[in-house]
């Protein structure tokens, strides 16, 4: 069984090709990192998987079921969860309620309370349960969102730059969280720029460039690949 698979996936925006014949697949239990220069199509790929964009052509399978036509919330119910790059939390609500909104969709009563407490403990926010989510530090907001995503009990967790803006200490802690989740059986697909962090967590790395899968392999293979180094150097100046 493959967990996530895309088949000849294409996406065009008025002639601009942001995904081109992407044949991606990952196995259950994997931690995969998605890297590539800016504009390589990483976030488009996420949006295609999440159903925020419809592909121009191609199919997407999740746990061997086709999900191409499903709406975003239906995909979430199938077991895909996401943590956005900019923390997507409910800032005006207390931390506890943020977590409750994530959990109440599938759990009720005491088991819901237990799941919330467990998730809060996991992301180390038990002491801050009563604070408004918007008043947490940047790192804590990222963790809260990871906690919310995780507590929907997904089999695949998508992380869009989970360590962006974090201190080295926070980054290390986030890496531990990801590994702990993986040990419990959750598969993780992360977009990440920090190669040090990628080395820390990834089983396998996929490189995207101009909407195409450019290379795939272990971190060592990728780092040894001169072509990959070239696309990074070649396009690094173009964007931003």
């Amino acid at each position: 069984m493959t967990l996530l698979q895309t088949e000849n996936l294409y996406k065009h925006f008025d002639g601009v090709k942001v995904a081109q014949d992407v044949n991606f697949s990952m196995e259950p239990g994997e931690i995969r990192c998605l890297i590539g220069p800016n504009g390589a199509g990483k976030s488009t790929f996420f949006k295609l998987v999440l159903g925020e964009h419809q592909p121009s052509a191609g199919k997407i399978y999740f746990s061997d079921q086709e999900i191409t036509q499903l709406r975003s919330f239906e995909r979430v119910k199938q077991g895909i969860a996401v943590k956005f790059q900019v923390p997507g939390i409910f800032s005006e609500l207390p931390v506890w309620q943020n977590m409750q909104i994530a959990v109440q969709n599938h759990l009720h009563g005491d088991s819901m309370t237990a799941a919330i407490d467990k998730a809060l403990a996991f992301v180390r926010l038990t002491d801050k349960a009563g604070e408004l989510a918007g008043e947490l530090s940047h790192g804590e907001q990222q963790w809260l969102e990871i906690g919310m995503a995780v507590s929907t009990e997904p089999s695949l967790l998508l992380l869009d730059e989970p360590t962006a803006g974090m201190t080295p200490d926070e980054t290390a802690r986030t890496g531990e969280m990801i590994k702990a989740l993986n040990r419990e059986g959750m598969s993780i697909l992360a977009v990440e720029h920090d190669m040090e962090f990628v080395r820390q967590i990834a089983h396998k790395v996929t490189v995207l460039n101009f909407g195409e899968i450019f290379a795939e392999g272990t971190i060592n293979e990728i780092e040894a690949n001169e072509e990959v180094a070239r696309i990074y150097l070649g396009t690094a100046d173009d964007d931003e």
Partner: protein
Amino acid sequence: MGSLQRQGSNTARSASRMPHWMRLVNGPQTLGHGPIFWVGFALAIGAAVVYPAFADAWSVGNTAYFLCWVFMALGLSLIWGYTGALSFGQTAFFGLAGYTYGVVTINFGAAYGMTLVGLLIGVGISCLGAALLGYMLFYGRISGVFLGIVTLSTTLVFATFMAQTAGSQWAIGDARLGGDNGMTGMPPLTIPWVGGDIALYSGVPLYYLLLAMLVLCYLGLRVLVNSRFGNVLVAIRENPHRAEMLGYDIRRYQLIAFVIGSGLAGLSGVLYTAWGQYISPSNMNLAAAALPIIWVAVGGRKDLTATLVGTLVVLGIFQNLTIYGSYYAFVIMGLLLVVVVVYLPEGLIPGLVRLVSRLRKRKEGLS
């Protein structure tokens, strides 16, 4: 301690020790909880119950008139305050239900509880209208500004339509729509009773009926917004994208909230029409449509209690101002709205609560 502070998580968790019914009406989505608040609530109801004994008939009838409007305000608080959907068209549903009540009761009379049937049909039709419009809007992914102007446009067109129904060809059965002059001659709410129907003309019995309905509606909405459903509504208000990515079909939640809120606007419309035996397009036009927005914004749209209190207070002020002419009243209402939006966007009551709790914190910090 603080009876009006928004409930944080600690209370939310200790809520599991509360009796079940208490947990339903108390929750993170409503200001006001704990013994002091509920004692105050009971006192307020008590005062409202004995009020007719101390007031003249006109005042009681007038208070009943105020109560008619509050349902629409609570409905708007649900749609705008809790769900974050800008609906400027609540008076369309108010009018739709009012006219429907008129058509039903003028044609079928008041006997055999027909007015109550008229009430149900009126509210039902406004729910149906809201479901149709809401489906187009929310399932068309319309949000923010556009939602506001499409709902307002719909209301204005509906008001224009009703205004040109003056001719005698514009009648449904015996009910003349009446154009700009509106529809008249419908009976008041009439309760079938052994030994003769009781017609609730503006007076004490009507006042009690409305009071009871309002208390039920208020408590019912508290249950709703503090339920899992209410949790999702505020989640959608705060961050619709995140809510969807937690597995919620946000369009469905928005639509349901819109239908309930518009049904309440319809209820207000029926009650108002039955109270004054009159409904006209001027109950729906641009100025009329602004009023619910003002009540809800001034009190505090994100909270039911604030909306309830704010609406009654603003209605009182408005009526006292109309003594000097309704134009003056509207100007002051406009000013009030601008000032509140600029300086106290959360509304007066949450603003006040925040101020009090800040002062108390400072005091505690000093001692």
